[in-house]
């Protein structure tokens, strides 16, 4: 027992190898490999069309890659994510995993109140006490700085920034072990972005979240990511500790990115 748990602690939360996905003849992502360790935040940056969303979709099981391996360390040991049955994968998606979409409309139920949106994941895993569900939803609205008096309002009555914070609350309420985020600050005003980033950083630290975050924005990764992966034309051109990559980029493309010559 002791031996097994020691080994488990020594394994990455997510191990990715040779992940490749093309759309007909066009490369989506190619030969991507990395390890994500528990409590780590991995940033994925690259210009538009470099394959960030494709990679994230393949990792989260929204899309089937053409080849490659994705191994997730579940509570009961490592599992090859790509060979999971659909029921198993969907169960994982509503328990251990969370996915924050760029557009909050894709990640929220717009016809359901804020409290119902946050409570859905709790009910999906069997919560059957209304008072407790509501209390937890209310607590989470507070944690993402939404006035708890808005608990019965629908997200359509919320600003873009509030909707995104609600989507985050809805995802984090069950304490997921791995969070995927695709451009969570995209499409928001600069000041709203800053507040959201601040909030995310606080939550990541408090909860010790393991996160894979895709973004155009180097400021986002500088603030949030422990490690960084730079993609170009579907391939990883450079990866390492965030500060190292940003302060001393090795690949010519990363150097362009960092010097902001490229409009990303």
């Amino acid at each position, binding site marked *: 027992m002791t031996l097994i748990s020691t080994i488990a602690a020594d394994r990455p939360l997510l191990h990715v190898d040779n992940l490749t996905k093309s759309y007909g003849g066009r490369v989506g992502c190619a030969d991507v490999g990395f390890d994500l360790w528990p409590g780590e935040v991995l940033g994925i940056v690259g210009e538009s069309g470099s394959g960030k969303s494709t990679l994230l979709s393949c990792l989260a099981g929204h899309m089937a890659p053409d080849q490659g391996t994705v191994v997730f360390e579940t509570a009961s040991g490592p599992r090859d994510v790509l060979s999971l049955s*659909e029921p198993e994968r969907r169960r994982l998606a509503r328990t251990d995993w969370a996915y924050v979409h760029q557009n909050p409309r894709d990640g929220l139920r717009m016809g359901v109140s804020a409290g119902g949106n946050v409570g859905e*994941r709790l*009910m*999906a895993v069997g919560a059957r006490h209304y*008072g407790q569900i509501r209390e937890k939803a209310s607590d989470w609205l507070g944690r993402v700085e939404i006035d708890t008096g808005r608990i*019965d309002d629908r997200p359509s009555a919320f600003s873009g920034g509030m909707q995104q914070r609600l989507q985050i609350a809805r995802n984090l309420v069950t304490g997921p072990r791995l969070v995927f985020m695709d451009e969570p600050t995209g499409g928001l005003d600069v000041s709203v972005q800053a507040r959201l980033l601040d909030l995310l950083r606080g939550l990541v630290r408090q909860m010790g979240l393991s996160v894979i975050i895709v973004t155009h924005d180097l400021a986002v990764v500088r603030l949030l990511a422990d490690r960084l992966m730079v993609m170009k034309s579907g391939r990883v051109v450079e990866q390492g500790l965030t500060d190292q990559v940003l302060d001393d980029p090795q690949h010519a493309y990363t150097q362009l990115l960092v010097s902001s010559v490229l409009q990303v």
Partner: protein
Amino acid sequence: MTDQAYNFAYLDEQTKRMIRRALLKAVAIPGYQVPFASREMPMPYGWGTGGVQVTAACLTPDDVLKVIDQGADDTTNAVSIRKFFQRTAGVEVTQSTALASVIQTRHRIPETALSAGQILVYQVPIPEPLRFLEPRETETRKMHELEEYGLMHVKLYEDIARHGQIATSYAYPVKVEGRYVMDPSPIPKFDNPKLSGSAALQLFGAGREQRIYALPPFTDVVSLDFDDHPFTPTKANHDCDLCGASASYLDEVIIDDQGSRMFVCSDTDFCETRREMGHVGRLGTPSNKGAQA
């Protein structure tokens, strides 16, 4: 008189066989929605063409048919469907729940307990209980397959958040034998307990949506709820003004220009049978038949 221009019970034998196959599958998997190729019937969809097709596939010449709409045998809808089967199948008809072998219903379960050998056929407008929050058919089918029913409770959560209690009073969702979540058709939730453990065979037909589902006799049916907001089968807090029944589902009726109201059993056969037995409510008069008997 049977109208010889039609096959027995209107539908051709091949169609009835197709419907019976769907019914058998539905009985084998209680609460599961079985697709079937719904046929055009000589009446509009809102008139319960799904129920009519199921009834047509079940009827035999020996059957005794009762048709009710909101508990009453004498509404236009109930009368037309009853006439339709009298004409196309020549079966005997009745208003008595106890005497009927097949009962087609819209929006009610009879008050009189059903017995073994009886078939209750429900007319269903919307068979999919998850439709309210998830309009995609592919997704709702997947949710049934994988027993992902959290969304059903989101609906009840929204009810309580908005109204302080579970305000859903018709088509109240149920779980069948611990497996499939099912829409019991728009019966009042007062009727939900009668779905469970019934000695009769219960069949559900949705014509426009082309779905059939079933509860075989003695199926366990549980109404969904929260631990702290348990399911309660409510009715108007009155006795029937005609027959004095205290535990039957009541309709509220305005009886004069001053807006005076009375409460009467929605199940007309139940009410009349009670009056014939001598029961009298607040505004009732002893039944003639009762007096003669």
